[in-house]
Structure formats: structure tokens, C-alpha cells
């Protein structure tokens, strides 16, 4: 019988207790154990970026961490990016306005990555906006509208900060 570990995960401000084997990937713990299926699993070896979440604010591949290692960290998934009233956050709003997605599979990873990217650099240049999403793969859009969405999200966030 495989040994199980009691793991306490803090996700989007809520604490969850799960009992999982050590080999449970954090991406699987989020999706299967916590039923937070917004985090998508693409390549499962760190290349595609679909499973990117924020661990203590830093974009991190959920498929390259074990749930047991995530104890004590504050995790944000795409479900945590909406505003408290349930409406879309600035990056989500920008993706909708700019048509930054087609099939939407890669989108959760882009949204988390860009959210942290704009926090660290609220006014990116065009090149910085491209660089911000360089670690995420999208097979539909050709990236042009995603880069536009980064720039639009910076605008929205800037307008909100000013008002």
C-alpha cells in the first residue's frame, strides 16, 4: 500500500486538506483532489505552460511540483483571478476584448503568467510583453492577439489604478 500524506494546501485564499501519495503532482491535486479544473494540463513536463499557477506570487509549473512540496505556500490558480464580485479580472477582460484565445486550453497558464508579469512590470514595452509570454505555448492564436491582450491588460489595470 502506497504511503499517503496529509497535505494542507492554501489555494486562492482557502485552505484545503487532502490525503495524497507523495507522487501526486500539484497540477493533479488541484484538478482531481480539489476539483479546481481551471488549471489545465498539457505536456505534463514543463514545456507548454498550460498548468502555470502562482506559488507565493511567482509563476510556477504546477506539473513540476508535488502537492506535498506545496505545503505552506500560497497558491493562486486561474479561478483566483476573477474579482471578488465574480467579474473578470483585467487580464481576463483583455483576453476577451482582444480575442486572445480560440480553443482556450492554454489560456489559464497565460492568465496567471501575465497577471504576475504585469504586477512586476505594469507598463511593459511591446518586446517585454512578448517576452512575458515566451514560456507559454498556444497552438491557435499565433500569439499576436495574446501580446495585444498583455498590452490591453496593462492599460485596463493602469486606468483602474488612476481612477
Amino acid at each position: 500500500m502506497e504511503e499517503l500524506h496529509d497535505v494542507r494546501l492554501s489555494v486562492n485564499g482557502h485552505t484545503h486538506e487532502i490525503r495524497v501519495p507523495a507522487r501526486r503532482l500539484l497540477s493533479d491535486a488541484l484538478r482531481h483532489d480539489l476539483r479546481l479544473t481551471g488549471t489545465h494540463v498539457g505536456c505534463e513536463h514543463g514545456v507548454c505552460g498550460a498548468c502555470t499557477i502562482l506559488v507565493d506570487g511567482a509563476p510556477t509549473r504546477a506539473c513540476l511540483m508535488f502537492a506535498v512540496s506545496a505545503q505552506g505556500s500560497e497558491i493562486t490558480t486561474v479561478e483566483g483571478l476573477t474579482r471578488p464580485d465574480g467579474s473578470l479580472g483585467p487580464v481576463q477582460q483583455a483576453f476577451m476584448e482582444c480575442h486572445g484565445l480560440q480553443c482556450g486550453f492554454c489560456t489559464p497558464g497565460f492568465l496567471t503568467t501575465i497577471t504576475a508579469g504585469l504586477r512586476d512590470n505594469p507598463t511593459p514595452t511591446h518586446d517585454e510583453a512578448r517576452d512575458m509570454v515566451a514560456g507559454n505555448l498556444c497552438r491557435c492564436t499565433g500569439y499576436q492577439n495574446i501580446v495585444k491582450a498583455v498590452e490591453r491588460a496593462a492599460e485596463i489595470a493602469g486606468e483602474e489604478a488612476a481612477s
Partner: protein
Amino acid sequence: MKPAPFAYRRPGTIAEAVEALAGEPNAKVLAGGQSLVPLLSMRLAAPATLVDINGIPGLDTITVLPESENGGGVRVGALARHAAVLASDDVRRVQPLVPLALSHVAHATIRNRGTTVGSLVHADAAAEMPVVLSLLGGSVEVEGPAGRRTIPASELYVGPLESSLHHDEIAVSAFFPALAPGAGVAFEEIARRHGDYALVGAAALVDGAPGDGQSVKVGYLSVSDVPTVVDLSGVADDELGEAALAQLDPAEDIHASAAYRAQLVRVLTARVVRSARVFRQAQRPEEL
């Protein structure tokens, strides 16, 4: 794509971690896991035990050593993430080759979790940091049941993905020597896509005034089974690439033919040596 079962240990001290390793010959250390977890998921590796060192306090330090210690440099702890090392002004000032190379290590998201020391002892010949450590003549400090010892980079890399650490030893920190006042560095690599493993990468270290007496060394990644440094001191500018190839045997794989790799060695060698000289000159305007 799920790892095989393993026992999980999360020690609170290095001594406990060493003890956990000593009791299990088929154990692996988990630091950032950005190379290890894919290997586990693809079941290319199936250790019986993972010793997670992320709970050990005090391992994420980045320290500047004064000239009185090994000639000065920076010491990077085992849990210092690539992103922290890359963002460190101290590291940039003391040894600028480290951030030059780190900006090529995967993508920012991977650098947030991956550790520089982990990358060094993972001993991937396609990785940037082992070449940097080898070129600079740095070292790794390891702790095992017999205590601590220092492994110079020249003795660290044994074969593909194989370091000279014993199974019950943990890399505690790495030492990157400071850039000498009269020296210059450069780093370049060619990859199919930004953030991918390089087809070939090269790092250069030049030391001393331009001319026959100038020391010129270049380290290569993705060319041989282990990080390889060649001495190109005294070689004429237009013969640098051929002189490097005389000491290298570029390998063929699905990403590039041996002939293409050789061509990349020629191009990158000339480029990094030139850039390292420009770097050096920029800091010594009085020579112009």
C-alpha cells in the same frame, strides 16, 4: 505520465537529509525539481526515495565573498532559485557571466522554481550553468556522512548527467569566482526557440591586455557529453573556430548534425571571444 511511487522525506536540517540519503542507495535529492520531476513523470528515473530539501532553512542565501576568501566571488546556496540569482545585483557586479548565462536558462517560470546549484549537480552537458562553473574554475561544496568537502568544477563532471557526488552527499552551495579586474566575459547560444535547450552554447573568458599574452578560454554546452572548456590563448582571430574544433568532437542527435554543430562552434567561438573583449574594453576605457 505519472511518477512511479516513491517514499518522501522532508528533513529540516542538512544532517537529517544526509542521513536519509545514507540509508537508501536509490534516493534522489529534490530541490527545484525542474529537471528531476519531468524525468520522474516520464519514468526515466524511479528513485525509491525523494529527499525534499525545500524545508531546510538557510539554504537560499547568495553571499559575496571578499578577496581574502578564494580570491573573492559569490557563494550561492542550494535553494537559491535561478530567478533570485539572476536578479541579484551582487552577483551581477562580482561575476557578470552568471546572469549573462542565467538569462538563457529555460523560461522565467522555470527559473522561479529551479535552483542554480541543482542545475550544476544535475550535470546536464546541455545546460548553461555547468559550463559557467567550469569556465570560471568554480566549485561545489557538498556534505556527506564524513562531513563537508569541496569539489572543483574540473572534477565535478564525469559523464552525461553524471557528477562526482557520492549518493549520500548533498550539494550545499556553489562558488563562482569573481571576475578579475582585467578580464571580460560573454555568453551566447543558438536554440531553435528561445528558452529551449541550446543546439550549441559558448561562454568566453578573456583576461589581460589584448595581444599574444591574453588568456582566452571558451566553454561549450551541448557539444560534448560533459561541459568542455578549451584554451584558445594565442590563437589568431580568424583561426579561433578551427582551433576550438581541434579539441572538440561535436556529437550528432535528432536536433542537429555533427557538421552543423561544428559550424555553430566556429561561429559562436568567434562571436563570444569578440564580445568578451568588447566587455573587457568597456570597463577599461583608458586603454583605447
